[in-house]
């Protein structure tokens, strides 16, 4: 018993170290795994529990209605995460813990509402629906995308302009760029000029026409060509190999249209352009038509599932 819990604790200690374990120390971890099947079993149990937590994070919002968990959020501002996890993120990522909180201001939007922000230095930001952007009044050239999506049109000045998102810094080098932060991914798309992602860390420079996706759970950065950055402002979306659940999320954020996809559809990848006008029933019909699915209305929700509408 005592030994089992000791092994479980060792597994945890390793697991906590892995995100920052230097390359040359990995053999020690491998040797620990190999030295006993009890080690491996303990680690696999932990890895599984960890994966459950990781998988639960994005699903908590979607399942919130079913889970009947306490939600402290205004339902008008639905987020991916609700209940306990959202509450703790709000406490942690929120203002109260920042030093000098008084000079900070949070711009928020409800799903379907865009906010245009203009700054004294000439920088303009379009904030997509269901998004939050933190502004520091003592330094207007440092912003933080708390969640959602924003298009930045930055006036290039000697003083650097930075956007923080998901714990990473993006440094502007005279630019128009789009940042989208979800629980799973951080996406950056550059349409003019260039930005530097994670200066001092990954230190990746993205030029006009380039983009990147960071898989937040795995810390994987994939550089790619830019998507139609900021097209959402005019209701034009371009997707490449994007799960339909993310497409539905993009539509919800921009227009507030609530779409639930059947389980079979949500993971299916979608590539193509969608142009939407903001009329819910037309937009849903168009979207469902594009993916060859059927749809029906359920309260203020649209349910899209496999099979043709007639």
């Amino acid at each position, binding site marked *: 018993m005592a030994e089992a819990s000791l092994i*479980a*604790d060792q597994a*945890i*200690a390793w*697991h*906590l170290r*892995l*995100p*920052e*374990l*230097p*390359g*040359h120390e*990995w*053999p020690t971890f*491998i040797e620990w*795994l*190999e030295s006993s099947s009890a080690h*491996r*079993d303990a680690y*696999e*149990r*932990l*890895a*599984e*529990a*960890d994966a459950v*937590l990781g*998988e*639960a*994070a994005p*699903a908590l919002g979607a399942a919130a209605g*079913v*889970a*009947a*968990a306490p939600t402290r959020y205004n339902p008008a501002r639905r987020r991916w995460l609700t*209940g*306990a*996890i959202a509450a*703790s*993120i709000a406490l*942690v*990522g929120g203002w109260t*813990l920042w030093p000098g909180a008084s000079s900070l201001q949070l711009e928020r939007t409800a799903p379907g509402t865009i906010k245009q922000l203009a700054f004294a230095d000439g920088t303009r930001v379009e904030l997509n629906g269901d998004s939050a952007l933190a502004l520091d009044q003592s330094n207007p050239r440092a912003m933080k995308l708390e969640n959602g999506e924003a298009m930045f049109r930055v006036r290039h000045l000697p003083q650097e302009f930075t956007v923080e998102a*998901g*714990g990473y810094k993006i440094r502007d080098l005279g630019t128009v760029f789009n940042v989208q932060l979800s629980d799973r991914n951080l996406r950056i798309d550059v349409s003019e000029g260039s930005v530097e*992602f994670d200066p001092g*860390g*990954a*230190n*990746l420079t993205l030029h006009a026409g380039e983009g990147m996706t960071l898989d*937040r*759970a795995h*810390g*994987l*950065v*994939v*550089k*790619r060509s830019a998507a139609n950055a900021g097209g959402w402002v005019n209701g034009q979306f371009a997707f490449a190999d994007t799960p339909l659940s993310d497409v539905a999320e993009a539509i919800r954020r921009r227009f507030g249209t609530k779409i639930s996809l059947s*389980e079979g559809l949500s993971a299916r990848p979608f590539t193509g352009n969608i142009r939407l006008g903001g009329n819910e029933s037309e937009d849903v019909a168009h979207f469902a038509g594009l993916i060859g699915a059927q749809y029906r209305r359920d309260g203020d929700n649209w349910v899209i599932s496999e099979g043709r509408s007639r």
Partner: protein
Amino acid sequence: MPEAGIAAIFLANRAMVRRLLLARGIGADEADEVLQDMWVRIEQSRIGPVADPLSYLMRMATNLATDRRIAGQRRLVREDAWTSLQPVGHEVPDQERRLISASELARLEALLASMPVHMRQALVLFRVEGRSQRAIADILGMSLSGVEKLLARAYRQLVEFRNDHPASLPERRATPGDRSKSNG
């Protein structure tokens, strides 16, 4: 070229990556698939420069190992192989199961809600936001070792929770030998 750098490091350390996969209980054939998968990612996806490429590759491998193991368990459920081992399998529907069901989600939320605020915050920052322990210490105004202890306690609770609620995955597994040699 940074890509060439990471590719070279992958090739030079391929044996160690493979050893990690095997140590994680991935079968030999599947380990080779994972290596191939990693190579394709390295070649095609132009992974940007990273500070410690070997550490990056090992993390990629261990994450892929977890994904594979979970996918393997789901496959096991689907193929009904599990029914022959455990009567519980009859309750498992045919279609692919999510890792977590709505009722488990509610229990998980309840577990998180029952945690002390700092513990929950530390866990979410670590696991959901992917912050370093150093960053968490700064955010929560705690010492590094305090954060480490908090996270260790949180994970202990999570593992116990998982043991108490094995739920949709066939938690009581076949023998370890079965796992390392599975697939064919």
